[in-house]
C-alpha cells in the first residue's frame, strides 16, 4: 500500500486529461470515468486509515533533498474526508449537471481539484504544497464561474483576485522560510526552526501564512469572497468547496504548518482564537438576514469554521494543559469532519431543491416535506446536526469545543460559542420553516421528488450525520486520536524523517 501513495494525486490528474480525450468520442463515458476514479480513491483513502505512519520518498531521493509524501493520522483523516465527499458529489453530478453544458470539462476540472487537494494533504514539502494549492485553487476558480452567467463570472473574478493575493502571500512566506533555513522539507524545516536565531523573521512568516491560509479558509476579515463564490458554483461544487476545499487548503495547512513546522506559541494562539471568535459572531449574524438558500449556507460555513479555528487556537497555546489541549483539538478536528458531512449534505439538498423548483429564494419555497419527502427529511437532519441538536454529530463536536474552552478558563470565548450555537439554531429554524415546512405555494404544486442519483448521496450523508453522532466514540478512536497525537507532538513529526 505504501508504494501506491502518490496515486492519490496521480490517478485524478491522469483522469482529468484522459477524460477530455476520451470524451471526444463519446460524451457519456465522462460519468463512468469520474465514478470509477472517485470510488477507487475513496476505497484507498479508507484503507489508509488502518496503516501506520510512513513517509514516501518521491524518486527515492533521500530527504532533505527530495520531495517527501507524509502519511500520518492527520493526512489519512483529511484523505477520507476529501475522497468520500467527492465520491458522493460525483454521484450527485450525474443528474444535476445535465442542466449545464460541457459535462466532460466539468469532470476534468473536478478531478484536477481533487488532485490538488489530495496533494496538499499528503505532501511533506513546502513548495510542493504551494504547487498543489494552486492546482486546486485554479480548478476551483474555473468551477465557480462554470455557469458563465453574470453573477458566476463576477463571483469567480472576486475569488480569483483574492485567491491570487493569498497564494502570493503563501509563496512569500515559503520564500522567507527558505532563506532562513535553506530547506523546504517540512520535518527538516521543523528541526531547523527549533534553533532559529531570527524570531522577528519567523513572526513575519507567521503573519503571511495566517493571511494566506486564512484567506483560503475564509476566516472573518478575509471572508469577502466566500458568500459570493460558494453559492454561484453548481451545487455539487458548492458542496465540495464549502465541505472540503476550505478545510483542505485553509484549515489543514494552518494546522500542519503552525503545529508541526513552526511550533506552538502563545501570541499566535491568541490571534487565531480571536479570528475564530470574530468569524463565528460576524458570519453568524450575517447569515440570519439572508433570503437566498445557498448564501445563508455559505455564511454559516464561515461561522462554523470559526468553531474549528477557536478550538485550534486553544490547543495551539503551549501554556494550556495537555489534556485540555487534546480535548480542544479533538473537538476542532471532529467539528471539521462533521462540518464536511452536514454542509455538503445541505448544499446538495439546496441543489436538489433548485433542480426541481428552479429557485433557491427562501420566500418562494415552502412545504417541500410534502412534495419532496426524502430531500426535505435529509435537509432537516442536516440542519439539526449543524445547529447542534443532541443525537446528531454536530452536538458532540460543539460540546467538546465549549467544554475545552470553559475548562481552560476562557469564559468569554466559551459563552460566545454557546450564543453562536443559538444563532445557528435560529437561522436554521428560519430556513426549515420557510423551505421545508409550512404551506406549499401554488407555483410549486407540481414538484416531484428529486431523481434517485440525487437522493442517494443525500440519504448516505444524512445517515452519516446520525451514525457519527451515535457512534462518536468509534470515530474518535479510529480517526481523531491519531490526528491529534501527530499535531501535538512536533518531535514525532520531525522523527518521521529518520524513522521513515
Amino acid at each position, binding site marked *: 500500500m505504501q508504494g501506491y501513495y502518490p496515486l492519490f494525486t496521480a490517478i485524478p490528474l491522469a483522469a482529468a486529461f484522459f477524460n477530455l480525450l476520451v470524451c471526444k468520442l463519446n460524451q457519456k463515458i465522462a460519468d463512468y470515468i469520474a465514478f470509477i476514479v472517485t470510488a477507487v480513491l475513496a476505497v484507498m483513502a479508507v484503507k489508509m486509515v488502518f496503516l501506520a505512519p510512513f513517509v514516501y520518498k518521491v524518486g527515492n531521493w533521500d530527504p532533505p533533498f527530495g520531495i517527501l509524501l507524509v502519511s500520518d493520522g492527520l493526512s489519512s483523516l483529511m484523505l477520507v474526508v476529501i475522497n468520500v465527499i467527492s465520491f458522493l458529489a460525483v454521484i450527485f453530478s450525474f443528474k444535476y449537471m445535465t442542466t449545464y453544458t460541457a459535462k466532460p470539462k466539468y469532470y476534468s476540472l473536478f478531478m484536477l481539484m481533487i488532485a490538488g487537494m489530495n496533494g496538499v494533504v499528503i505532501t511533506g514539502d513546502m513548495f510542493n504544497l504551494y504547487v498543489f494549492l494552486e492546482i486546486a485553487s485554479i480548478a476551483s476558480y474555473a468551477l465557480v464561474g462554470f455557469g*458563465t452567467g453574470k453573477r458566476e463570472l463576477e463571483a469567480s473574478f472576486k475569488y480569483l483576485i483574492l485567491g491570487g493575493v493569498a497564494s502570493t502571500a503563501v509563496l512569500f512566506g515559503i520564500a522567507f522560510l527558505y532563506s532562513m533555513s535553506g530547506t523546504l522539507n517540512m520535518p527538516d524545516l521543523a528541526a531547523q526552526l527549533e534553533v532559529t536565531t531570527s524570531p522577528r523573521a519567523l513572526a513575519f512568516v507567521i503573519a503571511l501564512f495566517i493571511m494566506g491560509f486564512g484567506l483560503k479558509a475564509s476566516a472573518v476579515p478575509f471572508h469577502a469572497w466566500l458568500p459570493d463564490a460558494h453559492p454561484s458554483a453548481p451545487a455539487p461544487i458548492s458542496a465540495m468547496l464549502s465541505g472540503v476545499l476550505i478545510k483542505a487548503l485553509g484549515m489543514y495547512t494552518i494546522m500542519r504548518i503552525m503545529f508541526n513546522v513552526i511550533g506552538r506559541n502563545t501570541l499566535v494562539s491568541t490571534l487565531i482564537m480571536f479570528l475564530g471568535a470574530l468569524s463565528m459572531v460576524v458570519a453568524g449574524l450575517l447569515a440570519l438576514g439572508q433570503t437566498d438558500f445557498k448564501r445563508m449556507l455559505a455564511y454559516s460555513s464561515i461561522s462554523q469554521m470559526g468553531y474549528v479555528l477557536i478550538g485550534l487556537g486553544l490547543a495551539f497555546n503551549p501554556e494550556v494543559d495537555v489534556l485540555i489541549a487534546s480535548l480542544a483539538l479533538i473537538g476542532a478536528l471532529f467539528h471539521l469532519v462533521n462540518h464536511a458531512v452536514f454542509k455538503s449534505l445541505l448544499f446538495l439538498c439546496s441543489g436538489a431543491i433548485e433542480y426541481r423548483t428552479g429557485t433557491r429564494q427562501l420566500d418562494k419555497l415552502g412545504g417541500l416535506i410534502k412534495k419532496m419527502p426524502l430531500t426535505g427529511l435529509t435537509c432537516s437532519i442536516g440542519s439539526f446536526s449543524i445547529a447542534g441538536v443532541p443525537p446528531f454529530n454536530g452536538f458532540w463536536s460543539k460540546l467538546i469545543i465549549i467544554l475545552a474552552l470553559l475548562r481552560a478558563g476562557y469564559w468569554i470565548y466559551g459563552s460566545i460559542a454557546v450564543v453562536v450555537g443559538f444563532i445557528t439554531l435560529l437561522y436554521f429554524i428560519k430556513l426549515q420553516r420557510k423551505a421545508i415546512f409550512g404551506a406549499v405555494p401554488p407555483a410549486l404544486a407540481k414538484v416531484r421528488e428529486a431523481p434517485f442519483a440525487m437522493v442517494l448521496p443525500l440519504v448516505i450523508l444524512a445517515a452519516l450525520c446520525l451514525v457519527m453522532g451515535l457512534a462518536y466514540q468509534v470515530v474518535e478512536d479510529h480517526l481523531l486520536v491519531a490526528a491529534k497525537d501527530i499535531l501535538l507532538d512536533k518531535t514525532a513529526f520531525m522523527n518521521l524523517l529518520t524513522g521513515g
Partner: protein
Amino acid sequence: MFLYFLTLVLMVMGLYCLIAKKNIVKKIIGIVIMEYSINLFLILIGYKKDGIAPILLKNVSVEELTSRGVDPLPQALVLTSIVIGLGTLALMVAICLRIYEKYKTFDMSKINKLKG
C-alpha cells in the same frame, strides 16, 4: 539589502494597483506585478556575486564550487512559480473577457450583481 527592499516596494505597488484601480484589467496587472516581485525575491535569495553554475566541471575545483556556486533551488522554484503565474493569468484574462461580453464594461464598480 537595498535590493530586497526594492522587491518589497514593487510588491506594495502591485497591491496598491490591485486595491485602488477600478478597471479589472489594471487589477490583473497589479496581481501580476505582485507575483513578479515574489519571483524577484526568490531569485535574490539564490543570488551570489560572481557566482558560477553549480555544476562540477573538469576545470572547476570542489572548493571553488562550494564557495562560488549559486544555490540552484530558488531558480527551480521561480520557474515553477512563473508557470503557475501564467496559468492564473490565462484564467484571469479569460474571465475578464467573458465579463466584458456580459457587462460591456471593465469597471469593477459597475459589476455589482452580488450583494448582501
